[in-house]
């Protein structure tokens, strides 16, 4: 914050601000409250009409009931999200480097084409994708799913690294050239060492995206390999599902991404501030 003199707001304005912020806090935390409260209730206390009441006694019964059904999905999602985020970050780094610092003729034309891949609705490629994956024998297990997540994650990771590397001064790259480094060595010795913040952004984003995906998981995996979102929907999707189990399973399914966000969030922010994802 600058030390410049700023007009201080009238006290009532400040109070109003805090009131508004508090109200917003309530709005955003309401669902979280409902979630926690319901998941921690003894099953006998659970009812849709009494959802706002605090639990009489803390009970983890819902979690123990639900975990066996979620377990496989959880493991599958981990085996999906981790490799997918690492791979697409690495590829994105290479692409981003080339597009910002080692351009080829047509690079500025190619980039929007890549970007469009990020925005296009997945419905428009769904049918062909299913066909190709089936024919290639990649449908049913996690391999195909990982492949698909890596490929469709390329536009966003490329964008992240391209924006980030654009912040490296051209002169440093030129100095490396004059010093005798070719493209690969410039990438390894000059670009990668400064790239950790961008890696944080790319991997956190991709991890979240892969973990939270539903559509691809639904069409590309068999029962044994269902990611957690599918498992979650099956447990909690019906209308007759016990309310507490639905909440408990939703909570468990969200934990990893929320944990990543809370713990690594500041690296994410730092990376964004440092220039990833500009524009």
């Amino acid at each position: 914050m600058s030390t410049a003199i700023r007009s201080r707001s009238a006290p009532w304005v400040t109070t109003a601000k805090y009131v508004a912020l508090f109200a917003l806090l309530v709005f955003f935390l309401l669902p979280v409250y409902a979630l926690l409260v319901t998941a921690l209730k003894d099953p006998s206390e659970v009812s849709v009409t009494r959802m706002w009441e605090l639990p009489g006694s803390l009970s983890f019964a819902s979690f123990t009931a639900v975990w066996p059904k979620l377990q496989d999905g959880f493991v599958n999602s981990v085996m999906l999200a981790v490799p997918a985020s690492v791979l697409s970050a690495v590829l994105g780094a290479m692409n981003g480097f080339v597009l910002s610092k080692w351009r080829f003729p047509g690079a500025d034309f190619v980039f929007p084409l890549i970007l469009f891949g990020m925005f296009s609705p997945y419905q428009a490629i769904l049918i062909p994708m299913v066909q190709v994956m089936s024919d290639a024998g990649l449908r049913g297990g996690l391999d195909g799913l990982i492949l698909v997540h890596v490929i469709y994650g390329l536009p966003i990771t490329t964008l992240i690294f391209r924006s980030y590397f654009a912040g490296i001064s051209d002169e440093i790259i030129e100095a490396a050239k004059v010093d005798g480094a070719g493209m690969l060595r410039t990438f390894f010795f000059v670009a990668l060492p400064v790239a950790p913040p961008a890696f944080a952004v790319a991997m956190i984003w991709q991890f979240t995206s892969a973990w939270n995906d539903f559509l691809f998981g639904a069409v590309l995996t068999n029962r044994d390999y269902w990611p957690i979102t599918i498992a979650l929907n099956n447990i909690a999707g019906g209308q007759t599902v016990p309310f507490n189990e639905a909440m408990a399973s939703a909570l468990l399914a969200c934990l990893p991404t929320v944990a990543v966000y809370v713990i690594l969030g500041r690296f994410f922010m730092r990376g964004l501030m440092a220039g990833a994802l500009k524009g």
Partner: protein
Amino acid sequence: MRKLRRWGPGLLLIAPSLIALGVFVYGFIGWNIRVSFTSWRGLAPKYDFVGFDNYTALARDERFSLDIKHVVVFTIAFVVGSLVLGFVMAMLLERGIRAESVFRTVFLLPMAISFIATAIIWRWLLDNGGGRTAGLNKLFADVGLGFLRSDWHKTDSSFAIAAIALPAGWALSGYVMALFLAGLRGVPDELREAARVDGANEPRVFWHVVRPMLLPVVMSAVVILAHISLKTFDLLYAIDGKNLNIDVPALYMWFTTFDGGFYARGATIATLLLLGVAVVIVPYIWYSVRSERR
């Protein structure tokens, strides 16, 4: 071509990604369009050619017309709501409140969770099944705001889908807030200081100096939100997928293809969805690449 030595390695490094995207994005889009010109029904692919029959059939399809209306309603409610909410949150946090990072963390939290989980939580919040008072309605009644009671997305009105803008806005306003915060903080201090020295008070500084510079942010936010809204599937599917009152093209495509086996029709809907998104996105991409060049 001596120049090849300079940029060749770069092209080589990026080539696999380009090829992969070329196939998986553009190749598949083309393929999908091809399917939309067939009469493929059932599990076995069929690549005949029926011209634009599928498209004309859709134009006359009642469900599809409803879908379009619903998705428009949803988009407007969602985009406007998120814009307003995100803007308000950014303005409240802009000056640097104590514990700003706590507020920011909470507001951005919903972005970390999947739409499925969001849907499951909000399904119960918006519950009003069987005439009982539950979920949010119960909360309203408890705190004396009973008049806010609503049937949400279960109403018979064709605007039922507007209720879903609530969970969607809950999930994404944080992102809009982040955009606005970046935009607000990107206004150079010197401009504001010049205005203050010229005699403007804070509201006027905002109106004359800051506001005009927010236009790019608003445009960015609108485009991104609109395209997300058109693509939204997970949220609607898990909240109340079979409810025809909140049916949208994305849902129709799913059900008609994977439940009904009408692959050709599904491909047609998908192509139209793509066109809808392209209309919004292509100018945006073109504009941002152009201004970056400047």
